């Protein structure tokens, strides 16, 4: 934690400085005879200053606990941990679907491809023998088709939402 806190503290200090800077840059609308206390940059500036202060406290506390020199064991074990690998694969697939496919191909197709790929990739290592694997491979597109069609129909015709 001290190492992570050290870096986070630094990031927060930089963020605080950036926010205060941007807030000072914001117009004060003096030409409109606006009350200076209504300036748009007032509250963001204050919040930036508070985040800077909190970041500094975190940074100093972590530095005192030796955060600047501790090695980073988590990174070495990180890629080996199956949980981290599962999370990384899930993030990748979800980003590909929601950030890439949705909006570029029809929604039902994007959903079908996503669910099929997700289920196959995660169930593949769980299969016990060839018959089980074949069953799982066959089930994935079936589930995907039902969900893709079902959700699309529900949102388009029942809730009248224009799909991306």
């Amino acid at each position, binding site marked *: 934690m001290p190492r992570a806190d050290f870096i986070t503290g630094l990031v927060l200090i930089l963020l605080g400085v950036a*926010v205060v800077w941007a807030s000072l840059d914001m117009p004060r609308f003096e030409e409109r005879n606006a009350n200076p206390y209504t300036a*748009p*940059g*007032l*509250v963001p500036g204050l919040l930036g200053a508070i985040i800077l202060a909190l*970041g500094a406290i975190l940074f100093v506390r972590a530095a005192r606990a030796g955060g600047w020199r501790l090695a980073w064991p988590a990174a070495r074990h990180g890629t080996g941990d199956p*949980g981290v690998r599962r999370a990384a694969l*899930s993030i990748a697939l979800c980003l590909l679907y929601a950030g890439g496919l949705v909006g570029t191909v029809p929604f039902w197709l994007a959903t079908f491809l996503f669910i099929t790929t997700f*289920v196959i990739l995660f169930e593949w290592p769980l299969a016990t023998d060839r018959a089980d694997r074949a069953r799982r491979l066959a089930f994935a597109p079936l589930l995907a088709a039902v969900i893709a069609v079902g959700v699309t129909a529900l949102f388009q015709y029942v809730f009248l939402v224009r799909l991306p």
Partner: protein
Amino acid sequence: MLGQALLGFMTVDALLAVTWATLLGIAVGALPGLTATLGVALMTTLTFKMAANDAILILICMYIGAIYGGSRSAILLNIPGTPANAATTLDGFPLARRGEAGRAMGIATTGSFLGSMIGILFLATIAPVLAEFALDFGAFEFFWLAVFGIMICGHLTALDDPIKGWISGFLGLLVAMVGQEGVHAYPRFAYGSTDLAGGIGLLPALVGAFGFSEVLIVMKERAAETVRSATDRVLPKLEDLTRYWRTIIRSGVIGTTMGILPGVGEDMGAWASYAAARRASREREKFGKGSVEGLMAAETGNNAAVPGAIIPVLTLAVPGSAPAAVLLAAMFIHGVRPGPLIMIEFPTFIFAVVAMCVLATFGILIFGLLLTRPLLYVLAVPRERLMPVIFVLCTIGSFAIASRVFDIWIMLAFGILGLVLREMRYPMAPLVLGLVLGPILDTSLRRGLVLSDGSPIPFLIRPISLVLWVTIAITVLLSFRRIRTTLAGLLPWRGSREEISKEAPKG
């Protein structure tokens, strides 16, 4: 007025809505990866086009059902279905492993029912009074209320390291600053993007933080060990209830109070009730090993927090918990304006909400006791098949509110942010509360300064403001260990969540 409100809901349509919404809520709560916040958020998009009262009824049934439903997986899988049911695992799972899963579920059901009813009693009596009191709130008071919410939520959700809670809260406030501000309509932090000028939508952020990040966390964890069968009796013995009546009432009151505190929700309701029950119990050694009293306290506490969380939503437009934040957003979407003026503009609405809570509570009692065995099948769905479906719903749910693809990006960003924050032990609740309270804090501070012409005096001496900022100061002081240890030496009070979970045996 309450009787009239209840009668108004005694139609076939309304009762049907209560039935399916509560059942769906229980299923949502029971499934790990689906939280009450996500359930209510998704239902908000689905009930968009319905009339206000029908929509809010469905949302409340989903909310109450989900907080109760999480007890299923807590007892049978040792995984809380929602964070509010974390304390339930401590005694629920050991009971299930002993072959008393049915008894545990029956206790959880009745505890949830009674806790909810106690909370509803407070909602019906306190809310109208608080709304009257809140009419005295001016800009100065709302400013301090917003700060108070962040400070107390940050402290209570990160008891071992309040600084992280406060950082989370102030980051949330900062994110709320993105977009057009309320006085000059100047687009802050937009950098030319019309999407950013529209601000960070609350619902997509909530869906990301409580939906997408939950999906990732479930995929990260190992698959669960299950107690799949519950062959013992489900209906609780009367002596279980009469023996622990003091625990039930105490947990109900504590749970409701935790719910009323801004941002501090059902999970603190459960933990605080559990800790208090353990301290006051004559069978303290049984806690953590299958104590009926412990289970009862946890489940009564978390469900009592639900009506508790709705009290500040209705009277101050400040959410008492994350799902309550979604409820607040939903009310605005449907044209109901919660806040101090609610008794003037929508006088019957509070009682309508009380009636909705009563119906939902009876729903969880009936379905909880009758449908124990069928609901077990819900838990059998493998996560590899369920999680992608949930994510599809998260995606379309975020998009459907304002038909903006940008909202999907917000959902993705907050999902990954939620995962990172959780790994680094920063609580999510203050971030979300910050998002909600940001605009209130912003306009109140500026308005207050204009009214006082820059003077801080009104901020400090007006009576309600005084109470609020002194409480904030005490909260900050108590976060310093040196001050706490000095006080602990003077007072016999002790006990907190980390102490309980450190002492309770794992699994």
